[in-house]
């Protein structure tokens, strides 16, 4: 198993009131950015990553978002380049570069090749379509989001593997002279991983390319369903998918005492947490969704939900997961809408956010506690989803550097060894032990069981 450390690198000192007032992190006015705080946080995050490697994580993961205090990693490749130099052995996993937003993806091919060379072959690039807000921020046409994603992907792989110079004349990108001097250290190219929040189109695309798919803290039932779609697609493509084809990222926070963990773990929900990433109109600009996804979305709208005026992706995901009303985000969502109409106060909205804390823990969306109490919960996730890569998502919000480092230390000392044992016991194989897509599928054979529905039922 690959055990991975991830922090969103949030700007932790953004006033929570401003996030709530703005009904999302994206678009909070940048007058709330303080250079001293930003400078300190960037350096702390690099220290966290180095420490995560020291305590035994196999991989460190970065991501990229624009125009938001939710994540300061707007230019993730800069951080990755630093980590390439200051870490020694951890994989540097980028999940991922928002390809459709780049006007010059050839430069991304060059940047990633440099990082792979500096790190002597430790880069694991990953690519995303980007949240809708990245399209708005970067002036990237959302109606061409998927086309640009696919063409940029093809171009980068060609730049890495096809002898140059050559000409690239596509629908969205044209180059007269593709001949990057630096190509990746890993041959023919670095192993690629794709993260997502359960778009079926992306899952199928991943399976066709034999890329591992990493679920970003997505609800367990819906995740299990989509991994089976991956497995079926893989069989159609002529290979057997197994745990090496999957990864999962999970909010985990550990402290010395249960009481402290419970108190600090709340910060996962700071400002509304992931559900408050951006307002509906920024989450789904026109054309960002496929026609099919729009149709699914239209069908999930119910009278009086206010959904017609803009349906958020978390509502969509909830509908997909068949979650009951009242769980994790529902209460906070409706309060946010009332806030927008001036029918609720900021204090009420804040209370609604934190009211979902216990439910989020019960549903395993947030795992927080001492090493002793978090291990059985992680075991449940591993039993259900059997991911070859398991990522730990550091807490958001106002959690001090010291407390974050303590969490990393306890994870390294007590949690990681136990999780490795569980992985072995469950026979979980990671993508570096077994190349995803390497095992041929014999037509008509029973394909490998990817998820445990029994374990899922036991959890529910």
């Amino acid at each position, binding site marked *: 198993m690959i055990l991975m450390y991830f922090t969103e690198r949030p700007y932790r000192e953004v006033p929570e009131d401003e996030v709530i007032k703005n009904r999302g992190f994206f678009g909070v006015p940048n007058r709330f950015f303080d250079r001293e705080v930003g400078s300190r946080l960037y350096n702390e995050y690099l220290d966290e990553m180095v420490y995560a490697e020291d305590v035994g994580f196999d991989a460190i993961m970065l991501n990229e978002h624009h125009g938001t205090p939710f994540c300061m990693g707007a230019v993730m490749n800069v951080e990755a380049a630093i980590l390439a130099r200051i870490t020694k052995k951890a994989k540097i996993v980028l999940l991922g570069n928002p390809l459709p937003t780049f006007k010059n993806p050839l430069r991304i091919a060059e940047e990633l090749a440099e990082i792979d060379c500096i790190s002597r072959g430790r880069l694991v690039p990953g690519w995303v379509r980007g949240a809708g807000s990245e399209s708005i921020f970067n002036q990237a046409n*959302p*109606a061409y989001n998927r086309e640009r994603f696919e063409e940029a992907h093809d171009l980068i792989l060609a730049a890495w593997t096809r002898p140059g110079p050559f000409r690239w004349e596509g629908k969205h990108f044209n180059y007269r002279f593709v001949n990057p001097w630096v190509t990746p250290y890993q041959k023919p190219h670095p192993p690629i991983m794709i993260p997502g929040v359960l778009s079926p189109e992306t899952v199928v695309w991943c399976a066709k390319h034999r890329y591992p798919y990493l679920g970003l803290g997505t609800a367990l039932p819906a995740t299990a369903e989509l991994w089976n779609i991956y497995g079926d697609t893989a069989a159609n493509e002529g290979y057997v998918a197994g745990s090496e084809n999957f990864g999962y990222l999970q909010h985990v926070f550990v402290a010395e005492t249960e009481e402290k963990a419970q108190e600090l773990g709340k910060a996962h929900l700071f400002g509304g947490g992931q559900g408050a990433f951006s307002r509906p109109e920024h989450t789904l*600009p026109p*054309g960002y969704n496929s026609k099919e996804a*729009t149709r699914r979305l*239209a*069908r999930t709208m119910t009278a009086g939900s206010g959904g*017609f005026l*803009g349906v958020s992706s978390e509502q969509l995901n909830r509908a997909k997961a068949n979650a009951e009303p009242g769980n994790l985000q529902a209460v906070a969502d409706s309060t946010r809408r009332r806030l927008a109409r001036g029918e609720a106060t900021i204090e009420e909205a804040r209370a609604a956010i934190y009211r979902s804390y216990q439910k989020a823990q019960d549903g395993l969306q947030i795992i927080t506690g001492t090493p002793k109490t978090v291990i059985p919960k992680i075991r449940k996730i591993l039993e259900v989803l059997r991911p070859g890569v398991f990522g730990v998502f550091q807490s958001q919000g106002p959690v001090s550097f010291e407390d974050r480092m303590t969490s990393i230390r306890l994870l390294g000392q007590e949690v990681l060894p136990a999780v490795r044992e569980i992985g072995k016991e469950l026979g979980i194989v990671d993508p570096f032990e077994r190349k995803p897509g390497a095992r041929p599928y014999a037509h008509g054979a029973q394909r490998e069981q990817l998820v445990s529905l029994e374990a899922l039922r036991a959890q529910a």
Partner: protein
Amino acid sequence: MAEWTEEITHVAGTDLAIIKGGQGKPLLILHEELGHPGWMSYHQALAKDRTLVIPIQPGMGKSPRVEQIRTVHELGLFYLWALRELNLGPIDVLGFSFGGWTAAEMASADSKAFRKMVLVAPPGIKPPDGDIMDIFAVTIGTQLNATIYDAEETPEFRKLYGGERTPEQFEAFEEARTETARIAWDPILHNPSLPYFLQGVRGLPTRIIWGREDAVVPVSAAEAYRQALANTDVQVTIFEHCGHRPEIEKGPEFVKLVREFLA
């Protein structure tokens, strides 16, 4: 309803849905960015002595997307081709908002395709004062509400797009917004070259109609259009206490103005 029909015609290399209604000389109507709003009372009034020809923009409703149309200028070239094939030129044209921009692009490419032109609050030229609303970064509800100055005083506002907000209508709106974004995302709902090329328009009597309180395309753009169309006969009419939809906010006055101008 017997007042209008919708037929699919193969023209300009694609299937094109065209709504037709009324009697008399044909009048080309180019609809706005959310699609054809339905058969409203201004259609009814104009159809008394004109045959309304309302093509549904490719990529919306029953007209399939044409991938080769990648700008509003190219959308204009497409419609010019369609008019030639349908033997409809020179024709009077009435363009609403995005449809007005499209008509202006058509005129800039071939002003002989039209006899007279009416533009209702078109984007397409960057307003000298204020910004064109970023309709792509707001919800459909916000976009729709922004088009009207006083919804209470505009009973037809609630009848736009069939009135009911069904999942099917949500899909239709998303499809229309997607197609508009696809060809007008960048630059934001305008073509920096359009003012230059509009100077080449000659012999095309033009009427520009705007609402003073337009929150989608600031009224300052009316003057920019007038200046760009300097080499043809152009007049501007601005309605007071009116937003982006004078055709329903000032229905009777609007219809009177258009009928007199086109007479």
